């Protein structure tokens, strides 16, 4: 028996989400009194995982998997579970993690709980806390199947270092032709840009910015803070910013440490999307904007005056604290 964690990597390096999900899975393994095995794909040096509680890494090396492939990855995870007699599988709620988790669950006839925020309340019966209603509530769920699949919400648990080293073992799962039926035609990925899902800080703009030509100051603030840029729904609907930046109930959820909202009034659907952000700053010229009720810090005033001033001050602060 063990806990198995899928550790996501990019260009041969583990993503921060992989280390977080390993940290969490170590907590689950400890609660169950068992060991933690990771499965990694095309990652040469897996030793880093030992620092986050992984005892053993099943290292898959296969050129056919250079592009992410949900079906093949799910197949490999299933075989790893069978090899290790794992009772719990943990994945990150990244786009790829969300893609494969239900496929893994079906293959293993396992109950799957997504958006998990905390370690299990109990492991027998197996109960976990997750978000529901787009962060407007929590749901405590019991998984009744023998094998359990958990999707950990981003930034919900953080990184926790452990003592120990991870051994590495080459793992060669068997793939079928069916696994390679979907072909990748192209991948269009912004390099050197922080994504909303991974960001510690998100800077977001709304209709109050009056037009896409005014986004320079938002991007500047994001540059200074190493943040991702985001926007409200009307802004993406009007085509000022891409859909991928839309934060809210039908857009992306944000779970960053800091969320700065500029010129966003705070519709209920937007607030649902940012509930999981830890600290919220709102800059708006309307003192009655509902967003102030959800904020930790608020500044009332004209964004076109405040944001450039704030950017200068943040730059000075960053230079001093570099």
């Amino acid at each position, binding site marked *: 028996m063990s806990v198995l964690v899928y550790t996501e990597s990019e260009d041969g390096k583990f993503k921060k989400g992989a280390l977080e999900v390993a940290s969490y899975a170590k907590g689950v393994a400890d609660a169950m009194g068992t060991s933690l095995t990771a499965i990694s794909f095309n990652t040469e040096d897996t030793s880093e995982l030992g620092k986050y509680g992984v005892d053993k890494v099943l290292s898959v090396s296969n050129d056919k998997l250079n592009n992410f492939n949900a079906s093949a990855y799910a197949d490999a995870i299933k075989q790893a579970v069978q090899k290790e007699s794992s009772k719990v599988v943990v994945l990150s709620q990244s786009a790829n993690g969300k893609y494969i988790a239900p496929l893994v669950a079906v293959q293993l*006839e396992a109950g799957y709980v*997504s958006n998990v925020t905390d370690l299990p309340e109990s492991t027998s019966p197996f109960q976990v806390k997750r978000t529901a209603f787009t962060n407007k509530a929590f*749901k405590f769920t*019991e998984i009744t199947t023998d094998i359990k699949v958990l999707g950990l919400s981003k930034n919900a648990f953080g990184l926790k270092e452990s003592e120990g080293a991870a051994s590495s073992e080459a793992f060669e799962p068997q793939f079928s032709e069916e696994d390679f039926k979907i072909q990748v*035609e192209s991948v269009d990925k912004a390099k050197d840009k922080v994504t909303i*899902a991974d960001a510690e800080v998100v800077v977001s703009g709304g209709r109050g910015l009056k037009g896409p030509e005014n986004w320079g100051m938002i991007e500047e603030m994001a540059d200074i803070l190493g943040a991702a840029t985001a926007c409200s729904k009307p802004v993406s609907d009007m085509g000022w910013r891409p859909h991928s930046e839309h934060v809210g109930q039908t857009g992306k959820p944000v779970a960053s440490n800091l969320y700065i909202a500029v010129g966003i009034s705070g519709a209920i659907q937007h607030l649902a999307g940012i509930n999981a952000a830890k600290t919220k700053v709102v800059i708006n010229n309307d003192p009655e904007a509902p967003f102030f009720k959800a904020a930790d810090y608020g*500044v009332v005033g004209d964004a076109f005056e405040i944001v450039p001033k704030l950017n200068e001050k943040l730059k000075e602060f960053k230079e001093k604290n570099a």
Partner: protein
Amino acid sequence: MKILVCISHVPDTTSKINFTDGDSKFDTNGVQFVINPNDEFGLTRAMWFKEKQGASVDVINVGGAETEPTLRKALAIGADSAIRIDTTPTDGFQVAKELAKVAGEGNYDLIICGRESIDYNGGMVPGMLAGLLKANFINTCIALEVEGDKATATREIDGGKETLIASLPLVIGGQKGLVEESDLKIPNMRGIMQARKKPLNVMEPAGAETATKAVKFEKPAPKGSVKMIDADNLDELIDLLHNEAKVI
């Protein structure tokens, strides 16, 4: 092309969320229900296939009789027929199994689901349905074209997008981007009248088992009040973010 669109009946996005029966059940009192927004983008894309490529479009839902107005709305938007699997599900795996039975028997070329419903946000039904049907699956779809038995789909990935080619039958988890918000259809009077005559078949459930059960719900703890900072004193904001919140 034969298309099935899976429709979830969810509280309107502006709904206040409350619980009843000792915080064990969602309180539907005074709540307006709508087509799940992610499903609505998919339904509209299906209508495009119907209009441009002559596809037939069925919609399906797993739920009690109270979900029928939502299915009727989908018919009013233009779906040809509706299926309601008559059970109140408590788990995504159960929904996927119930859908798989009907979908498998219907020999659909394309099954469109929303990437998740906006109530329980499980995000599991599309993938589980594909897995159960052993069909190709593409999640978080933001564009979809079909020619013959070949589909080209673009999906959102962290930090970008990826375009994939898959043969039919295909299940997708769709979202905003499949069509623009401005393209969403509002049923007109003619559509509403026609919807009354379109078939809505109620089917007995297969009795699929659940894999999870809800223990209880809880609302987030109330938030402390906002600290207002004078627009002329932005140094204070930086100081608070650094020393109090410790986020910069």
